[in-house]
């Protein structure tokens, strides 16, 4: 049996891509295999670890729990789309670098996308709120302490930059 292919148009990081995929293609796999955007990582493939988290219309969602065919009406932002326009690190990325918020880095793309949206919604998180912001993401290396520090540092960097955090594909 040859599987039916669907023409799918995906808008990712401001670029429109056209791909042909079977309906069962997970969005995470479409991003990685069909578009070559391997920044999005895949850990558990059932929604638990958060490594595959991307922004869908600016809101964090699990790309392993969506099908590419159902992502057509949305603006998607992956970790590749978080850097500033001049290619320099975004405040959240910069804070991870400064605070040593990663070791192997496998979980990092999911944390970066989640925190980018989290700080947009709450630019001045308390320590508790910073912990809560990352509660849905697993990291097997860092012990989280430096990730929480990175959230707090990123809040300061966003504030210093005076500009609001990148709107990350949020619709007007």
């Amino acid at each position, binding site marked *: 049996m040859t*599987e039916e292919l669907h023409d799918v148009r995906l808008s990712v990081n401001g670029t429109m891509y056209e791909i042909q995929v079977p309906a069962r293609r*997970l969005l995470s796999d479409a991003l990685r295999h069909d578009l070559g955007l391997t920044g999005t990582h895949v850990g558990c*493939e059932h*929604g638990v670890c958060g490594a595959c*988290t991307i922004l869908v219309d600016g809101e964090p969602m*699990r790309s392993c729990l*969506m*099908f590419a065919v*159902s992502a057509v009406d949305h603006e998607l932002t992956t970790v590749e789309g978080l850097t500033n326009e001049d290619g320099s690190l975004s405040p959240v990325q910069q804070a991870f670098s400064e605070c040593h918020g990663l070791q192997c880095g496998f979980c990092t793309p999911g944390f970066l996308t989640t925190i980018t949206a989290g700080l947009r919604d709450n630019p001045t998180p308390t320590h508790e709120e910073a912990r809560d912001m990352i509660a*849905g993401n697993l990291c097997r290396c860092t012990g989280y302490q430096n990730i929480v520090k990175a959230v707090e540092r990123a809040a300061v960097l966003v504030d210093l930059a005076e500009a609001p955090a990148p709107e990350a594909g949020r619709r007007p």
Partner: protein
Amino acid sequence: MKPAPFEYRRPGTIAEAVAALAGGTESKVLAGGQSLVPLLSMRLAAPALLVDINAIPGLDTIEVEGEDGGVRVGALARHAAVLASPDVRRVQPLVPMALANVAHATIRNRGTTVGSLVHADAAAEMPAVLALLGGSVEVAGPAGRRTISADELFVGPLESSLAHDEIALSAYFPALAPGAGVAFEEIARRHGDYALVGAAALVDGDSVRVGYLSVADVPTVVDLSGVPEAGLGDAALARLEPGDDIHATAEYRAQLVRVLTARVVRSAREHARQSREGRR
């Protein structure tokens, strides 16, 4: 960890969606996918056809019905939107109290409250809430529309009384009566995990009722009216048979029922007291 092949439809109207589900093919509705996609990826389910309802306009509404009416939540209203809605909080505060315990924020951004109800997981928060409040679900099928009350919705583990060719359009949560109080408590391994045991309470005058999750195969409501404070936990246990699984022993669950019952009823009474004082 990849789903088996399936045929995919993305209808633009309810009528088209109902038509797509008609016929003998083994089919599933795709809403938020936060329960269905893991089942497909683990190949615990392998339907021949998936009908994606996400492109149907008008299903993402959250509306208060009439003067003393409750709140109606559309099939595409995401948990996050329901949780953030000031109308829902005002009309039936138990809904956001419980929703805050449903998974993590990222899952709530995509998962739907109606999907969680018809998925009918006895470990899930919202089925227990709908059962306690006596809410209902409106569905559309080949024979037209019908309303299924919470009593008739949950029939077994992960089994609701929707026919395979029916689509849930909305859920109705009755309003909190003036002077009544509600509360929600659960114990989970980690915040955001499914609860080992959870309890929602509704106190209205002398009436005390508690809805339990993760205790039986279906959400279970127990009437504890007239039971003295100290006997609440044991009175509840007399009507429940907590089970064993890999997450907790029956004995531990029984202990959680005792503790949470006392706690949730106390909180609901306090909430009732505050709401009476607030109105004065």
